[in-house]
């Protein structure tokens, strides 16, 4: 073949491979969880192949070794991301073999090229990992060597290889735990097969059917990484006679972002993120007939992807927490603090409604952990906690003797479910001891306090269990409590509001003015009897 012919052929092949990859770019991005789950494998592979396409587009015809060298070099220079770097080595391996070819390319040479590609890819990676682009290219090389012994057209071989590649990609979750846990196939491997699919299509002149949806794509769960501000990912194909790609693209541009319009006069594939998929489809029906419509809610997808990417292994915690907590809001605070790092069972109860020993035992036994830590969060619950711990024969249980909800929260910040109960208890007790606790409630009877008469129904403020302020002004009483709690320097004040919401107006401003360095957090606790609980640490 002439030098011009070679160049034209390479241009066609690269273009076909690129188009195939581009069509799957965002799907491949979404698959990306390894080695770093940053969702850019499709983009990186596309940019890498684009660099090759740009080089061959502007290249002058030369001999085969020169052309092969130019292709390999452009892949290397333009390689983006880990996957791009590995791809550049694959391209180099192929180019080195094809450069030596003096005639047309048949199956034996293709097999040698793939073997060269596989070897080059493995050489480029210091610690090769199975279930990645590497195992996919190696399996392609092996399959090509097996099949190349039979005489056949190159196109047939490539089609078979695409099938085999799809299977190899489908197996990657069995080879690499990270993929299995995330429920995806390897992104780089999937990209590689898309490139091959494009090549096979160009050689045979026929579209090589896409991989089965269940293998190649999360299907209807197809997910997008792009932080699009639009809600719907809209994909469709327009078929017509003289479709104008540029014009359709310009029209769609106004409706959203992540716009991709590819194809020819007879068929255009559209991908757009928009809040108005109907309008986008109307633009398609205005110039032709539409089919293959897919509209997906990306906000939902992003949530799903987030969940898939939270690769924290859900192993059983070494130690778990049983906490006695009053108020729905407080329960939620305890749960959100403990669950990410271990496990917790909350037993409702507190000052007035002490839980029974039996309730605590039931919670301890339900705990999905080998050891237990009990946070009584009230002096009146401590005895029941001790009895419950004694009745647990098979599970070591430690009691961290917290006397208040704020102390319990501080203790829980130091909890780590991967540690044993004893180690946790020591850390947690230390954290709880560093908290000064306050309460604001209503006086249930007339009392005399530091020469101040407090009438039944007035506000009564306590600091570490001792009455320190009283009166009919909530802010004054609370401020008196805070003053006591901050007698020692503290960094953080947590306010937990009760089922009877306290009048906080003015209090926060007053605190900010009096203690400009203090961080103040307010949360709805929902506890009965105490409109406000305070923790200073």
């Amino acid at each position, binding site marked *: 073949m002439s030098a011009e012919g070679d160049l034209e052929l390479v241009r066609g092949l690269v273009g076909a491979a690129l188009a195939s990859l581009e069509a799957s770019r965002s799907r491949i991005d979404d698959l990306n*969880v390894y*080695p*770093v*789950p*940053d*969702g*850019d494998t499709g983009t*990186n592979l596309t940019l890498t192949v684009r660099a090759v396409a740009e080089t061959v587009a502007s290249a002058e015809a030369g001999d085969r070794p020169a052309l092969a060298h130019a292709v390999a070099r452009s892949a*290397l*220079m*333009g*390689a*983006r*991301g*880990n996957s*791009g*770097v590995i791809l*550049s*080595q694959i391209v180099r391996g192929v180019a080195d073999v094809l450069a030596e070819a003096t005639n047309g390319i048949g199956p034996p040479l293709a097999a040698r090229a793939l073997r060269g590609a596989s070897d080059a890819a493995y050489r*480029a*990676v*210091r610690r090769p990992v199975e279930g990645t682009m590497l195992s996919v290219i190696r399996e392609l090389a092996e399959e090509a060597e097996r099949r190349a012994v039979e005489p056949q057209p190159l196109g047939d071989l490539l089609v078979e290889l695409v099938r085999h590649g799809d299977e190899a990609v489908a197996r990657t979750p069995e080879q690499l735990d990270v993929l299995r846990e995330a429920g995806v196939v390897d992104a780089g491997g999937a990209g590689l097969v898309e490139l091959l699919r494009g090549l096979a299509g160009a050689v045979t002149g026929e579209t090589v059917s896409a991989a089965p949806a269940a293998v190649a794509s999360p299907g209807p769960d197809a997910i997008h990484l792009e*932080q699009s*501000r639009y809600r719907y990912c809209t994909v469709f194909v327009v078929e017509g006679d003289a479709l104008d790609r540029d014009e359709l693209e310009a029209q769609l541009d106004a409706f959203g*972002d992540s716009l991709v319009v590819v194809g020819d006069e007879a068929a255009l594939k559209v991908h757009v993120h928009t809040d108005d998929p109907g309008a986008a489809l109307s633009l398609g029906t205005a110039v032709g007939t539409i089919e293959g419509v897919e509209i997906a809610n990306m906000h939902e997808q992003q949530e799903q992807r*987030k969940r898939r*990417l*939270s*690769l*924290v292994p859900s192993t059983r915690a070494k130690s778990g927490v049983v906490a006695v907590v009053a108020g729905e809001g407080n329960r*939620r*605070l305890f749960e*959100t*603090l403990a669950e*990410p*790092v271990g496990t917790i069972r909350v037993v409702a109860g507190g000052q007035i409604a002490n839980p029974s020993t039996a309730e605590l035992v039931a919670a301890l036994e339900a705990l999905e952990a080998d050891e237990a830590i009990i946070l009584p969060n009230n002096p009146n619950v401590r005895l029941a906690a001790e009895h419950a711990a004694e009745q647990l024969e098979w599970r070591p249980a430690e009691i961290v003797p917290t006397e208040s909800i704020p102390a319990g*929260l*501080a203790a829980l*910040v130091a909890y780590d479910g991967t540690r044993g109960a004893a180690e946790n208890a020591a850390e947690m007790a230390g954290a709880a001891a560093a908290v000064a606790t306050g309460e604001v409630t209503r006086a249930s009877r007339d009392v005399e306090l530091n020469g101040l008469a407090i009438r039944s129904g007035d506000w009564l403020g306590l600091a570490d269990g001792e009455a320190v302020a009283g009166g009919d002004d909530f802010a004054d009483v609370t401020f008196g409590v805070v003053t006591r709690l901050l007698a020692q320097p503290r*960094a*953080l004040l*947590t306010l937990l509001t009760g089922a009877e919401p306290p009048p906080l107006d003015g209090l926060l401003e007053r605190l900010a003015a009096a203690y400009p*360095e203090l*961080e103040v*957090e307010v*949360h709805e606790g929902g506890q009965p009897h105490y409109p406000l609980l305070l923790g200073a*640490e």
Partner: protein
Amino acid sequence: MRLTSANTAIVLDSTADLPDAADRFASWRVVPLYVRFGDESLRDGVDIDAAEFYERLRAESVFPTTSQPTPGDFLACYRELGAYERILSLHVSARVSGTFASAEAAASELGDGRVRAIDTETASAAIGMLALAIQRRLERGTSDEEVDAFVERYRRERGLLFTVDTLEFLARGGRIGKAAAFAGTLLHVKPILSIRDGEVVPVKRVRGERKAFAELAAALETETRDEPSFRLAVAHAAAPERAAELEALVGERRPHAELELVVTLGAVIGAHAGPGTLALFWFRDDE
């Protein structure tokens, strides 16, 4: 081969957060990573500086992504350093970035054995401190073997602690690793993190900014001594007040130690740590 400051160049990538590296030493270069806002690709520290980056991060709805330099980028840099017999190419942990892989690919493409790509297994000012320590050895003359042994010691002994405002940035960029468990609670838990074996790892969680700062202050007390051989660095992302406070604390508590670097996290590290990040680095080196 005897390595000296005259025959050996140092190449960093922009995650070292030293955009002025080439001004510090004529033999130093920085190869930028890329930060992308949508389809716009910018060279970290070249097309966009830290201040511009945090401003855009605040102002724009599109979330930036990052990408490693191409092997071509490294190749161009290595070629430019043709006058040097040895190039030490020091890069961000290969566990979190493909930058090292690009550098290695370029080194093997160059094929003359001049370039030694090194995975520092760390990031930001810790890379800068390592480079400074190697430069000190080059000034007096050293060898590849000594550099290797030193890098190995650095990986083991260098300390670093950092706190982020939110784990959202690490999570979005996929660099969260084992720290994921610390993510998001109602109580504004501040994670205290480190980098171990090249990965971000959780150390502890505390509530509130003041307490997070107190953890860094505590590390300064327990992990370092007030001696000139203790080298320290402070880094921050759009948190100059906090960084200044930490810097002042270092000056007050460790007046005889060497505060080598106070840096702003550039666009790429900033995109993964997020604004509000504050970091303390320490390392003992008698040279």
